[in-house]
């Protein structure tokens, strides 16, 4: 039993890091733009399909797909920003409007994926030797360890970007205070587009990792990932892109350890319940300084 629990813990950590990436992407977009990216999960699944197509059509492995996915989707996000977002600021309630707008986008993306790839679940075929690694008494699929390592590297890169570069610091500044940034003279529009591109790029890369870690993916799984992303933000706190990671670990571990004792849907319920509880007890999340309003 304890090995199962430890196994669950380990799975929770691995998944938690992945969930954390989802949360970070969402956090960047919501924090900087106050846009609720309801289509985040769909972009994630698109990333998975991107890797799938590269592999089946061109034989390109996920290691190369990862940076490619980021570049391609960053560009897509950057362009999409100008198409979708500036109009929102004129509406009565930009946050709800963005939520509904991105909800429409999520439905469109899901439908497009359905049309192009059909409803069957796809998998990313990977040949990695050895398939499992033995650590202590525990069996870990190698591909999950690799995904974990990549995810950690990405988080490190992201942290470096956000805390050590000019652009990154400007993004963090906007998250804390939009108007002040404008006054200081930073071009908020272009910075916002960068933020959006960054968020979408992160979503796509996470999608590639998800394709590596989970046995299969299908067009309509996007919704679940979006919801997980928001749970993670709520737990970790807005304005704390790295704080989302802690929230994600909390969620991932809760979910995966519960799976040991209960069935998956109850585990999901507990995870969601955790978020609901957090909102009532500490709305700013574990690390956030301001509540989501």
């Amino acid at each position, binding site marked *: 039993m304890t090995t199962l629990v430890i196994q669950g813990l380990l799975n929770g950590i691995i998944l938690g890091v992945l969930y954390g990436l989802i949360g970070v992407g969402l956090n960047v977009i919501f924090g900087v733009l106050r846009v609720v990216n309801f289509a985040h999960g769909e972009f994630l699944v698109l990333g998975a399909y991107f890797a799938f197509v590269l592999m089946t059509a061109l034989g390109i492995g996920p290691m190369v797909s990862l940076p490619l996915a980021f570049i391609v989707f960053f560009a897509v996000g950057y362009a999409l920003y100008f198409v979708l977002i500036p109009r929102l600021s004129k509406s009565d309630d930009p946050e709800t409007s963005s*939520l509904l707008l991105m909800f429409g986008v999520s*439905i469109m993306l899901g439908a497009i994926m359905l049309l192009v790839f059909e409803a069957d679940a796809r998998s990313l075929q990977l040949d990695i030797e050895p398939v499992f690694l033995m650590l202590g008494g525990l069996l870990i699929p190698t591909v999950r360890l690799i995904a974990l390592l990549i995810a950690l590297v990405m988080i490190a890169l992201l942290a470096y970007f956000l805390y050590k570069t000019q652009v990154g610091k400007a993004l963090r500044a906007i998250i804390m205070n939009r108007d002040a940034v404008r006054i200081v003279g930073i071009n908020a529009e272009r910075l916002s587009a960068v933020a959006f591109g960054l968020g979408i790029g992160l979503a796509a890369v996470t999608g590639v990792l998800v394709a590596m870690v989970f046995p299969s993916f299908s067009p309509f799984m996007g919704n679940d990932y979006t*919801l997980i992303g928001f749970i993670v933000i709520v737990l970790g706190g807005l304005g704390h892109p790295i704080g989302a990671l802690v929230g994600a670990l909390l969620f991932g571990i809760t979910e995966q350890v519960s799976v040991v004792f209960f069935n998956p849907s109850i585990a999901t319920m507990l995870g*969601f319940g955790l978020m*609901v509880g957090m909102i009532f007890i500490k709305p700013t999340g574990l690390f956030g300084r301001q509540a989501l309003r």
Partner: protein
Amino acid sequence: MNSPHDPPVAQTGDHRGQDMRADQLRTQIAMAIFAVLTIAMAVVPSVTGNVSLAFYLMLWVTMASAMNICVGFTGYMPFGFVVFYGVGAYATGICYRILDWPILPSLIAAGVVGVMISLLLAPTLRLKGVYFGIVSLALATIVRLFIANLPDDFTGGSIGLILAKANNPTHSYYAMLVVMAATLATVLWLSTSSLGKALKAIRDDDGAAACIGIHVPNTRLKAWVLAALFPALAGGIEAWYTNVVDPEYAFNVLVTAKSIIYGMAGGFGTILGPVIGTLALLGVDHLIWQKFPVINLLLLGLVIVLLMLFMPRGIVGTLLKRKPQLRRYIA
């Protein structure tokens, strides 16, 4: 009570009469439109055997109007709205199929369960904006998973419940008509009542509303319960109409999505908006999209995006923005 500086009644008489008649005009126009719709729907079964489009029109008018109580009147956007619909469907299915109740008490059970769930979820009303939306969605998912985890012989598992014995398209059609009429009557009442005004004040600025003596949480709760009742009944009646309680459909996020979009297409700020929006979009859906089932979903998403980008206030709302003088006629 009356200080010497209260106005003499005679002076206010003529303005009062004028203003009252103006308000009444608005209400009468809405009432007339609703009456025409109701009568038209009542007549459909005697004109054609295929009542399906009309049935679903009534269903979505009900859903969009109930959503309007949340959004247009109170200022909440519940992304888990489908939870009321789903528990209504399941309550009816379980009472009829498992407990062997007759259909009418089963439908009443749907309404009761819907109200109970709304009371259970009432604490979420403390939350605001996006937070409320996300929690609403999460809670709806929890309820869905909870029902999925109940014993299969109680809920029918993943296949759902079949209500074959109840099959009566005509009776269920008229039940839906009654519920739609009740929903429209309710929003009509709300548009002129003190409760409706208090709700709009809360929607505009809940802090200021409290400062003028409105008990905000209680007032919100009343609207919330009202908004939950009708989707629950609709869910129950739809289950009766189709004879099936399907877990995939009963808690599908598309139910919430359509309620929002049909309402938004017309505009949530008025009571006519959701009705017009539903008529418009359902009409488009029937004429165009049904012919292209494959890209149906894509078009729905596209409509949402275009609406949000170019007409976020909906048809009626945008009209009112351009011609404010029409406010005298549109409730």
